């Protein structure tokens, strides 16, 4: 009964979404406020029914109702309770429902929070978000309904959740990532409404900024969590693989970063408004493209779990309609936005324009590398893949000038600047950054960082120059506490970017990755730290069995701790999985994961003193800085968003 109610509320939500499109449009045509006002209650009603149906699906999962196909395929009675709930977004149908629910949540937030918006504008925003929502709901109801049943013969137990997803990181990663992806629908809807309103005078850029900043921040956290998960769960110790699915999330992130900054120009100076609107459209288009790439299975990827050509084609059609429609609107009305304001060559406007262009170029490079295999296969029939060196080779040269520019943005003023003054302000910090990047690695490791010195210099430069700007700003305002939330946000986000770059530079140059064969009792030395293989025993969990290694890590300081990496076999699906053991630290991680048993004769009784296993033992310096920097960036973005809201209220 319960699944049918869930199904029913999905249909009601769909009807409400259709009304949410039709009624305000009538209002806009008739220029009637009452019709336009209807969008508020329709949006709230829609999100109520979607919330109801997602709650019902959660309950169905919690009570192991295996008559529901989706539950039977992705859960199991022996699955820990927490993972039963998160299994909701473990596969296609549920994550699509989650996607739609988050979209309705953002729409409801716009309706509730943006009370200052003129109703004619809000009605348009609701219509556009309604169109996106209707497309996805139709998709859900037609091809991927999570409430479908196996009747009358349903299985007694479920096929279990993919063991890779039975992990805290993956419980929170998809919702946050979707908050980001879907959040970009709000600036997209605002941009289209601005075009649709055909009015140059509306301060749409001001209205969009806090929404864009929030979506961007959630996406940042989502990507960082995904990278952290891949690091400890996949067991190869990498934090970024240039995998198509990762690229699918990186592209909207890069353009979103450009959009956040372009909005400042459009808001404060009313310049490059057309470019800003275009960026808003591209950002959302790339979010949709990400959904298409991940869900259609068109790209082979380690993350692609479910794929079905019918779904792919529907998503592709949706993508074409959304992108085609919005670009047509842009082509028709975008001309009005061309401003005649004169731009000074040495000004924050120019710098930000170059910054956004560089980010767009970087995005295009990633886009090409990700989609080239598909295009090539369609054109020539030859299958190929693009190796990760391609991405490093094109991405890094794009990011060098970007990093040079980042801390200069807040230093240079809007309008005319003297280039000499600017150079005077930054020269000391720049020289100090180079010196630190050369001297610090020499002092600690007696080695230079090689080519990574460039990255290290840029990272240190971004951090130091940002702190200098923060210091000067607070001196001007008369104290650190007098700074606005926006200024704090900028300092945090920029410094976070620098910290991320420092982390990437150091870990990629100084990491040590050793794949070794170890017998119980043997010791391995990894960058002055001793790791001894003490013991190997069997372990058993509620839905898995496996081996656990016991390693004693003697740290450089004299302290020693035990690490317990595991090799698990999940009973229901028969999949084997590595559980890594990590000794984390600000300066370095020691990372252990079990490979396989190297006993040739498996039938022989396992005597612990002769057990021999292959082991990955990795030394990863500064790796935490990568995620730490990303979190700072996200925190800075959220602070700035909050600052914008406070300003809007006063």
């Amino acid at each position: 009964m319960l699944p049918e109610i869930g199904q029913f509320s999905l249909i009601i939500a769909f009807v409400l979404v259709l009304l949410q499109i039709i009624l305000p449009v009538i209002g806009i045509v008739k220029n009637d406020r009452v019709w336009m006002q209807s969008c508020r209650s329709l949006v709230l009603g829609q999100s109520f029914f979607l919330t109801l149906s997602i709650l019902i699906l959660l309950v169905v999962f919690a009570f192991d109702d295996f008559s529901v196909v989706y539950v039977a395929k992705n859960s199991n009675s022996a699955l820990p309770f927490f993972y039963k709930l998160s299994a909701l977004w473990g596969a296609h149908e549920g994550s699509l429902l989650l996607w739609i629910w988050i979209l309705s949540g953002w729409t409801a937030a716009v309706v509730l929070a943006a009370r200052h918006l003129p109703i004619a504008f809000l009605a348009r925003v609701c219509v556009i978000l309604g169109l996106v929502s209707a497309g996805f709901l139709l998709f859900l109801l037609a091809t991927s309904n999570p409430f479908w049943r196996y009747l009358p013969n349903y299985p007694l137990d479920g096929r279990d959740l993919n063991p890779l997803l039975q992990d805290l990181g993956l419980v929170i990663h998809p919702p946050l990532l979707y908050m980001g992806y879907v959040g970009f629908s709000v600036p997209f809807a605002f941009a289209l409404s601005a075009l649709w309103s055909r009015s140059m005078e509306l301060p749409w850029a001001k209205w969009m900024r806090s929404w864009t900043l929030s979506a961007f921040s959630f996406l940042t956290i989502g990507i960082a969590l995904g990278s952290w998960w891949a690091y400890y769960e996949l067991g190869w110790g990498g934090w970024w693989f240039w995998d198509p699915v990762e690229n699918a999330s990186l592209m909207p992130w890069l353009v979103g970063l450009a959009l956040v900054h372009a909005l400042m120009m459009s808001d404060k100076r009313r310049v490059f408004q057309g470019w800003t609107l275009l960026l808003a459209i591209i950002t959302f288009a790339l979010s949709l493209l990400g959904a298409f790439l991940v869900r259609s299975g068109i790209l082979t990827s380690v993350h692609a779990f479910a794929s079905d050509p019918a779904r792919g084609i529907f998503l592709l059609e949706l993508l074409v309609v959304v992108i085609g429609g919005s670009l047509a609107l842009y082509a028709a009305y975008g001309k009005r936005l061309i401003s005649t304001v004169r731009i000074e060559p040495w000004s924050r406007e120019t710098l930000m324009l170059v910054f956004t262009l560089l980010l767009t170029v970087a995005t295009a490079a990633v886009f090409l590398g990700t989609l080239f295999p598909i295009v090539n296969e369609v054109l020539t029939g030859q299958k190929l893949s693009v190796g990760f060196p391609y991405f490093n080779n094109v991405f890094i040269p794009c990011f060098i000038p970007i990093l040079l520019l980042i801390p200069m943005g807040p230093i240079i003023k809007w309008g005319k600047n003297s280039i000499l003054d600017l150079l005077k302000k930054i020269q000391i910090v720049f020289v100090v950054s180079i010196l630190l990047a050369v001297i610090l690695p020499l002092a600690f490791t007696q080695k230079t960082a090689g080519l990574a010195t460039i990255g290290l210099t840029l990272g240190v430069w971004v951090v130091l120059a940002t702190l200098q700007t923060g210091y000067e700003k607070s001196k001007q305002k008369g104290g650190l506490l007098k700074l606005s939330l926006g200024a704090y946000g900028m300092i945090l986000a920029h410094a976070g970017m620098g910290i991320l770059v420092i982390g990437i530079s150091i870990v990629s140059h100084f990491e040590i990755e050793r794949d070794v064969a170890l017998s119980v009792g043997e010791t391995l030395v990894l960058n002055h730290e001793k790791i001894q293989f003490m013991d190997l025993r069997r372990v058993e969990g509620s839905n898995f069995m496996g081996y656990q290694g016991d390693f004693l890590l003697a740290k450089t300081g004299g302290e020693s701790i035990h690490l317990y990496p595991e090799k698990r076999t999940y009973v229901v699906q028969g999949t084997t999985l590595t559980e890594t053991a990590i000794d984390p630290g600000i300066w370095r991680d020691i990372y252990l994961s079990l490979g396989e048993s190297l006993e040739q004769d498996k039938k022989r009784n396992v005597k612990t003193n002769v057990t021999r296993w292959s082991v990955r033992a990795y030394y990863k310096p500064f790796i935490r800085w990568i995620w730490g920097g990303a979190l700072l960036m996200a925190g800075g973005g959220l602070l700035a968003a909050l600052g914008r809201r406070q300003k809007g209220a006063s």
Partner: protein
Amino acid sequence: MNVVQKRRLYFVLILTICSLVAVLLVIAALRENINLFYTPSEIKTATIHPKHRLRIGGIVQKGSVKQHNDLETFFVVTDFKQTVSVSYRGILPDLFKEGQGVVVGGYLLEPNHLKADEVLAKHDENYQPPGVNQNAA
């Protein structure tokens, strides 16, 4: 030329130069890093330069996996028509199993021997590498 036109000219010039540099970088990087994908049957007929990195997809032949002095592994990849032998040094992924689909990347040392530096196993029990039809066996 007036000021506005001059400004536009500079802007267009800078944009053109930047995009040219970007396009050149991208093309150079793409040329060096393309891994062509073959099935064991295609390998036999294709002409492959030993310095070009490539990928082969197929099924790990049952009974073919041999572990040599600890971390060196030999196995045979098949599409049930032709086979290629593969050697790999390192730890194999969790999902690597006899009878399962794999994609191996590396360099062809001999016409039917690949020295692999990467072994990918799909996170899906039902996955088959493109171009391999298991029913043909």
